[in-house]
């Protein structure tokens, strides 16, 4: 059974999320989507690619595109020397790495804390996240992993910034 089928069969009753910090945001990705989390890797820059594409990494012989989540959200870049982590997702037979600031723990939020993305959030935010969970002292933004495949370099950078503050 593929992860997708598995996921569908299991339903949404008790979803588990890997959590990651990007700037001031706490982002959650469904556990079954995450292939692995690895430390920063040497990267090959890809000229002319969409600006969200940070580069290519060699993951045990497989070439994986790394997407900088800060750039994608329109957030300011990491300060020099700040470390980043690769969250490798498996999406439709392709591995894609999301560059985040740091990896957190796996959470299993109560279903009744689930809410949609605030309608006041920018269009960019609403296309990226499928919902939110109110955790103790933090708001978990659930990433719609399919939206990763829609990155084309044309997102309004910066537009996300103010909206995300409102959301958190």
């Amino acid at each position: 059974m593929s992860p997708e089928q598995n996921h569908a069969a299991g339903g949404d009753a008790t979803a588990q999320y890997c959590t990651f910090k990007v700037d001031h945001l706490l982002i959650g990705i469904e556990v079954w989507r995450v292939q692995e989390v690895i430390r920063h890797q040497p990267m090959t820059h890809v000229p002319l690619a969409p600006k969200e594409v940070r580069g290519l990494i060699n993951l045990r012989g497989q070439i994986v595109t790394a997407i900088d989540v800060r750039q994608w959200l329109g957030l300011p870049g990491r300060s020099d020397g700040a470390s980043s982590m690769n969250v490798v997702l498996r999406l439709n037979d392709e591995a894609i790495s999301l560059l985040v600031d740091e990896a957190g723990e796996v959470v299993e939020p109560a279903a009744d804390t689930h809410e949609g993305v605030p309608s006041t959030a920018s269009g960019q935010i609403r296309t990226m996240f499928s919902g939110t969970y109110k955790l103790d002292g933090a708001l978990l933004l659930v990433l719609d992993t399919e939206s990763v495949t829609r990155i084309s370099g044309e997102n309004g950078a910066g537009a996300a910034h103010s909206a995300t503050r409102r959301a958190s």
Partner: protein
Amino acid sequence: MNDDAMNEIVQEFLVETNENLDQLDQDLVALESDPTSRELLGSVFRTIHTVKGTTGFLGFGLLEGLSHAAENLLSDLRDGRLGLTKERTDVLLEVVDAIRALLSAIEATGAEDDRDLSGLIARINVLQQDAEPVVAEAAHAEPVVAGAAHAEPVVAGAAHAEPHRSAGERSVRVDVDLLDSMMSQVGELVLARNQVSAHVEMIDNLALHQTVQRLSMIVSELQEGVMKTRMQPVEQLWSKLPRVIRDLAAQFDKLVSLEMEGGETELDRSLLEAVKDPLTHLVRNAIDHAIEQPDARIAAGKPATGTLALRASHEGGQVVLEVADDGAGIDPAKIAAKALERGLVSKGELDSMSEREVVDLIFRAGFSTAQSVTNVSGRGVGMDVVRTNVERIGGTVDLSSTPGTGTTFRIKIPLTLAIIPALLVGCREQRYAIPQANLLEMVQLRSDGASSDIERIGGALVYRLRGKLLPLVRLDETLGFAPLAADEQPEAVSIVVLQADGLLLGVAVDEVFGTEEIVVKPLGRHVKQVPLFAGATILGDGGVALILDVIGLAAAARVEEVTAGLALSSDLADDEDRSLERSTFVLLRVGRDRRVAVPLKAVARLEEAPASSVEQAGNGRVLQYRGDLLPLVALSEILDTACEDAPVEADGVPASIPVVVYSDGERHLGLVASEILDIVEGVFEVRPVGAGPGILGSTVVHGHVTDVLDVDAAFALAGKEPERVA
């Protein structure tokens, strides 16, 4: 017997029978030209006989009945009781088609469909009855003889076994997926080997070095071996064509004979698969459009039977597949008219196009020369799709055609795609791989000397390589990097000369590292959108390098149009007739809006000279040029143009002046213009409009009326015979 075992037998039967049917098609078509060949008849008989036997065993009643009827007819044919007529060939080919249809039904559903074959079987039987008078008494050789014949194949098989059939005993069937996965594993092994070799370089241990070297050798041999297992002869691709050609020729009432040459040439099976459709399309086109009706051919003084030649050969690490016909050829005028009608080009563009460029228009999307949609060529698959399909696998298609004599299409494709030798180059601290198949040569220039060999025409860079202008792109610029400050310029510039799609292109890079065998890996969806990259690879040190797509590079630099002409000019020089019609000009602006074209032929160099280096000498002006004095002629004087910005005038001069340097080897002369605009090539009709001293006449370039300079007369007029510069 359980279901699995049964399924396996059915699968094997399907694979084997399909192969045999391809052979049958060929044999039957071959039989038409050699109707009495017992060897061919024996081969056909054996195939049908095998089908009959196996289908009976597997319980496919329809197949068995059909092949039984066909076998009876074949038995009579083989034994000479009947002669092979066109009707009999037709019905046998029909049998092959029917068997094929039944096989695909079995493949899809596991059982025969309920088609009615009684009509076909009845016709076979009728054709078997009406035997020729000579052998009439033998015509009643039915079941008994046919039954007896069953024993014969063994003898016949032994006597006439063709070499490639008996080879079956020494080979095994391997699933294609398994071969593919082996290939990719060997690719990984090559990568790992490269990485080990890179690491070992730093370790001082002789035994280790020797072991690694041995490992490296074995890996190379293994790689070669696995690659060979995927190689298949081009013949395989061609095997279906005799039948296609026979049917098409019959449909169009044309006579076509097929010649095949080099069928043993081998090619990676994935590539073979990829060129199948383009090749079939070219063959269909040749019969539909190129080869004329027999009476038209005779009227043109050609044999009634047209010839279609398929040729395959190796050429420098590539495979060349040719489809040549001796048909009507491609008439550029017709192509031009059609392209104009379809709105693919403007009248102006057409005028500046060479004949070859016009003919190349058939590769444009939306072009189809079919007068009406036939069920052969007019299926919405145009030549543009042929070209796209071939280029997708790193190949090229071009064509040469002589009206009245024929057309030849040449498809060039790499041997394999999985592992390719590539040149690694550096640009802005990063490495890129260029497939070596595209590489012609490398030139290294020191930065200080480079500027004089690299020139800018309009917005485009060119490099003068052995007297020819080569369009040039700077890799860093093309990749979108900001230009470097003067003090950051690398000491040397390397120019990599590439060829793709019939055009030459120079790419200036910072560094050249050398060659490495690379495994081409696909790019993710986000990076795939960049047309400059064909893939990526992992290098010996574990780093990732992008593979440059040469056609994408050329397109990005928009050099195609300029280059098509430049690349061609060398070919055309050999061709007296056409060089008369075609010419290449440097396009200049003189004064505010006067345009002048000067022939490129004698141009040695295009310079931007600092105005301060122009000096008065005697009654003329000269330029200090490479340690010599270059006599200057201002075009504005020849043209008698009131020239507000005449560059050689003393006051308010621009800092530099564009100079076209003419040379015939010993003598040099500089023509001063206001601006060097472009280089154009094409057929330019020079009209005597505006002709006068120093001006041959005028023509239209890019929609502008342009004076054509008579260089010699202009020199004479200016009273400056080109002077000798020591």
